[in-house]
């Protein structure tokens, strides 16, 4: 197969070609490694997707020409915050520069055991805090559709790498939209599973009650394939659950009888006109496929962002207390005493957004303010989950635009944290409710991709993937313009 031909293959296609003997796994790995390494070596002259690229096929889980493993030989790009034994895992932060974990995250280990060799680690917002990947200590990632624009975040390196054809597929994490929003802005597929469906063991934590790992892929079938080899109970994560059924290969052609709910709270004010236009065109396609599209109410959804920006920083302020210069990471030199060492290490090691969120979270949890902020936010979270339960009594799935805008310019929102936070407006409600949601490309606005978000009840991933697949086939989105 020609070098360009093999880069055109989706992960599902590559698995089939390798199994049939018509594609060499080591050639596939070498082709992607060359591209990923060229991007890494170019630094900010490239897309800056990678913080580390494998030198060669790994010794363990190496591409085996005749392996029966289910995803044998499909190289995997992994967001920097997943711990990978002996491989830099820095979560986009100066404070973890050069950190080599002594163990590998469960979902990475599962995908490796299923035959996927580690291709590289991808750039991200520091500790996954951001919606543009401009908060990385290792420089911003550029959007392959337009290099003056951001790829979204925080899994921006993973999304841009898949969109640009520097990796066949990638792992990301989503706390308030960090898989779905960059997938939307880069014109690819991104899935946030039900909270607990995939183990969080070995993910450098941001907000533990919200963080979930998920796939960023070229199409819906690849997302299903990766998810199948991620889910399941892990004794190392007490919040992980046995997934009630196998993740199937999606194949629905029609949406007859599927009730799609359109919440007015997430499809009106604040959404860019071009995004709404593409969204409405996708709804019309859904109707053509037989779906019953109807309005639905999520009365508390407009308060989701407020609750999220209390809860996530509160959890982050606690999780990030571990970075104190004692057991791992960098340490400020010449400290006067222990307390001075802590504060100087954290001042030097954390970027501005991380400090902002730690401050916010510390404030929300502090004595005298706890009930007013954290307590109230947890009550809002209950109301949001109830809204979704009520809505799913009326409809099967909920559809919204993934992001209020298409990819914005680098630097456009860095001076206004609140404007940046509003990127998560449509994705945060699902995160607070712990339910699965997928973003698929549904068209272009100003020559930039628009994402369609589909959300379902807990553990409805198979139905979600089926609906996404049917719409994907009907929409026929062409992502070719992003390839480099």
């Amino acid at each position, binding site marked *: 197969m020609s070098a360009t031909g093999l880069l055109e293959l989706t992960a599902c296609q590559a698995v089939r070609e390798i199994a049939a003997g018509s594609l060499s796994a080591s050639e596939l790995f070498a082709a992607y490694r060359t591209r990923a390494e060229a991007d890494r070596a170019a630094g900010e002259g490239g897309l800056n997707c990678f913080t580390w690229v494998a030198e060669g096929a790994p010794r363990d889980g190496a591409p085996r020409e005749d392996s029966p493993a289910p995803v044998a030989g499909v190289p995997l790009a992994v967001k920097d915050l997943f711990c990978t034994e002996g491989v830099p895992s820095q979560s986009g932060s100066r404070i973890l520069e050069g950190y080599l974990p002594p163990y590998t995250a469960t979902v990475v280990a599962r995908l490796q055991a299923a035959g996927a060799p580690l291709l590289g680690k991808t750039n991200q917002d520091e500790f996954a805090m951001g919606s543009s990947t401009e908060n990385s200590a290792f420089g911003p990632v550029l959007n392959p559709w337009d290099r003056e624009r951001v790829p979204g975040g925080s899994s921006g390196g993973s999304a841009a790498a898949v969109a640009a054809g520097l990796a066949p597929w990638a792992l990301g994490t989503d706390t308030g939209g960090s898989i779905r929003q960059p997938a939307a802005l880069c014109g690819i597929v991104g899935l946030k599973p039900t909270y607990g469906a995939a183990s969080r063991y070995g993910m450098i934590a941001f907000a533990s009650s919200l963080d979930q790992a998920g796939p960023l892929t070229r199409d819906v079938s690849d997302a299903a394939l990766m998810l199948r080899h991620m889910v399941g109970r892990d004794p190392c994560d007490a919040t992980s659950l046995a997934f009630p059924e196998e993740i199937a290969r999606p194949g629905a052609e029609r949406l007859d009888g599927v009730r799609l709910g359109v919440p007015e709270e997430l499809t009106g004010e604040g959404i860019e006109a071009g995004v709404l236009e593409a969204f409405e065109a996708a709804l019309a396609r859904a109707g053509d496929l037989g779906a019953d599209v109807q309005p639905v109410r999520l009365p508390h959804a407009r308060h989701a962002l407020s609750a999220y920006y209390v809860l996530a920083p509160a959890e982050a302020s606690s999780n990030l207390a571990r970075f104190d210069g004692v057991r791992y990471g960098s340490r400020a030199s010449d400290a006067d005493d222990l307390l001075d060492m802590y504060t100087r290490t954290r001042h030097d090691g954390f970027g501005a957004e991380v400090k902002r969120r730690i401050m*916010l979270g510390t404030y929300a949890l502090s004595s005298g303010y706890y009930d007013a902020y954290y307590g109230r936010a947890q009550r809002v979270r209950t109301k949001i989950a109830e809204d979704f339960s009520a809505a799913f009594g009326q409809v099967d799935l909920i559809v919204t635009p993934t992001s209020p805008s298409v990819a914005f310019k680098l630097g456009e929102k860095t001076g206004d944290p609140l404007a940046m936070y509003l990127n998560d407006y449509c994705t945060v409600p699902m995160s607070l409710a712990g339910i699965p949601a997928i973003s698929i490309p549904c068209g272009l606005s100003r020559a930039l991709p628009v994402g369609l978000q589909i959300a379902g009840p807990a553990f409805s991933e198979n139905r979600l993937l089926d609906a996404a697949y049917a719409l994907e086939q009907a929409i026929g989105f062409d992502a070719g313009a992003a390839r480099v």
Partner: protein
Amino acid sequence: MASLARLALREEEIEPMARELSAVLDHIAKIDELDLADVPPSTHVIEVTGGLRPDVPRPSLTREAALAQAPAVSGEGFLVPSPQA
């Protein structure tokens, strides 16, 4: 607040941080308009039963591996500056 969070801020960092946090807190204050008196706070969103594993010893990291990434070690432990210089 910065000292509670073990963050040292330089003089010139304090004003922008205060301004940005105030803007975010103003937005968060919108939830004050909701009546939440009888609403229980969420403790978890997905019910997990039997999340705990059996309480039996199992192999853990070796001391060598646990100390390998530390900025400073002393013999068998992590080395830190004195709490009181």
